């Protein structure tokens, strides 16, 4: 039983990392209607920035904050320079731009920092917290706490502030948003900045667990994508819950089903997604496209 709880908590922690990146994907999807395939690479690049700052002697927490600020600014620049010109045209052009961005950022990171794996410092103290007779990893608890705080802040931003409401309005109907005086372009830019920041957060949280190299986020992106698809691509809550389900089933299957072990555990969540999407194509929390005639 103790072992089971440990595995579940570790699974939720992994799921929380996927959730941060999944939230980024959902944010972009809701405003542009496409998946940003470069989201993971943007996060990887920002994680390298954190590593480089820490390597240069900046205190770790400041290095991470610096990387998050960098990611926010870089996300806005990407929107302005690369996305804006193809916005509103064929969605396929947008997909191609994000794929191109994927390759460019991946190569740029390798060019700047090399292709050797690097050790990313731990953000949380090693060790375990004893709760009753269960020992839970402090890192896992810390990651979950960070995600919960982030979700809370996003909820406040989007439901309680005028700028959050304006961002939702701009994502939902750009033409109506302009008619009430919302500068839609600026809102999209802000959305990309925010998504980039969330991705970077996933990057710095996962880097210590996986080691840092240019393919840091490749696996995470697949799981985040799965979490978002499972929860419903247009639902932020769905992205979080979906990612948790993915993280937990992955951890449980890897631990308890011997045949699966750590090599095949990726198949379990993918199997679940397949079933859910056959039964409920919009995902668990997604809204199917319905309009009132």
């Amino acid at each position: 039983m103790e072992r089971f709880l440990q595995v579940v908590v570790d699974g939720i922690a992994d799921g929380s990392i996927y959730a941060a990146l999944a939230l980024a994907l959902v944010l972009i999807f809701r405003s542009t209607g496409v998946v940003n395939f470069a989201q993971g690479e943007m996060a990887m690049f920002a994680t390298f920035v954190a590593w480089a700052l820490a390597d240069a002697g900046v205190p770790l927490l400041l290095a991470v904050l610096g990387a998050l600020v960098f990611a926010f600014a870089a996300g806005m620049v990407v929107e302005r320079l690369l996305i804006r010109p193809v916005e509103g045209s064929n969605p396929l052009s947008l997909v191609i731009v994000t794929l191109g961005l994927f390759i460019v950022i991946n190569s740029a990171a390798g060019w700047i920092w090399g292709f050797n794996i690097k050790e990313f410092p731990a953000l949380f103290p090693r060790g375990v917290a004893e709760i009753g007779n269960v020992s839970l990893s402090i890192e896992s608890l810390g990651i979950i706490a960070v995600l919960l705080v982030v979700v809370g802040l996003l909820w406040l931003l989007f439901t309680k502030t005028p700028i959050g409401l304006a961002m939702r309005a701009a994502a939902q109907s750009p033409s109506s948003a302009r008619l009430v005086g919302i500068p839609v372009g600026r809102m999209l830019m802000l959305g990309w900045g925010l998504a980039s920041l969330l991705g970077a957060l996933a990057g710095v949280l996962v880097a210590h667990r996986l080691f840092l190299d240019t393919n840091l986020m490749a696996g995470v992106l697949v799981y985040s994508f799965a979490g978002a698809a499972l929860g419903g691509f247009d639902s932020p809550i769905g992205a979080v819950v979906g990612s948790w389900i993915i993280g937990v089933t992955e951890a449980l299957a890897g631990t308890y089903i011997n045949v699966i072990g750590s090599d095949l555990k990726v198949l379990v969540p993918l199997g679940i997604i397949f079933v859910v999407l056959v039964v409920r194509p919009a995902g668990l929390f997604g809204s199917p496209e319905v309009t009132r005639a």
Partner: protein
Amino acid sequence: MTALLEVEDLTAAYGQIRALHGVDLTVGEGQVVALLGPNGAGKTTTLRSICGMVRASGRIAFRGRDLIGLATEKVTRLGIAHVPEGRGTFAGLTVTENLKLGAYGRHDPEVRRDIDRWFEIFPRLADRRDQAAGSLSGGEQQMLAVARALLSRPALLLLDEPSLGLAPLVVREVFEVLARIRAEEGTGMLLVEQNAALALELADAAYVLAAGRTVLSGPASEIRAEDSVRRSYLGQ
């Protein structure tokens, strides 16, 4: 004295297809002007040109200030509100959120009181304040669209077919509110309407468009009386 809105020799095109060939019209401060004409005459395009939603040339001046080439959100902030075709409400947001967005450009402390006032004017919206706008009936959505537009406290309100698809009683209710707003707030209005009789009842003046041009203009009473107009352009 400069007029609230002056449009001179306005032309506009969708790609290669010219939709407007020379529209002239004037709306005075606090005046209600009806824009009439058959389908495809360019009424909607005229409104969209004023709001910068279509590329247009000619002259559009709002209180003397040139609007040609100005982005939609900037036009809105100058004091022009538009209830477009399809109403322009946010289907996935609640009624209250839609109204808050209507007051987006305002930073005065009276926004809350204004929203409450619209809930008094349209009690049906108050009953549904936390419901998604997309779940409202057509009439309720039109009320929401009008309230949303007027919450910006515009000097000029552009209305595109506010009676379209609504039950007669609801149409009556919406037009009574428009008349009341004009009387209380002195809001100028440019009203595109298929139902000419209804529009001319509210309007001070009217312009008739045909094939992208202004072909007739005058006080509402004269336009109403003109037999040839009714036959040729208003389909009565």
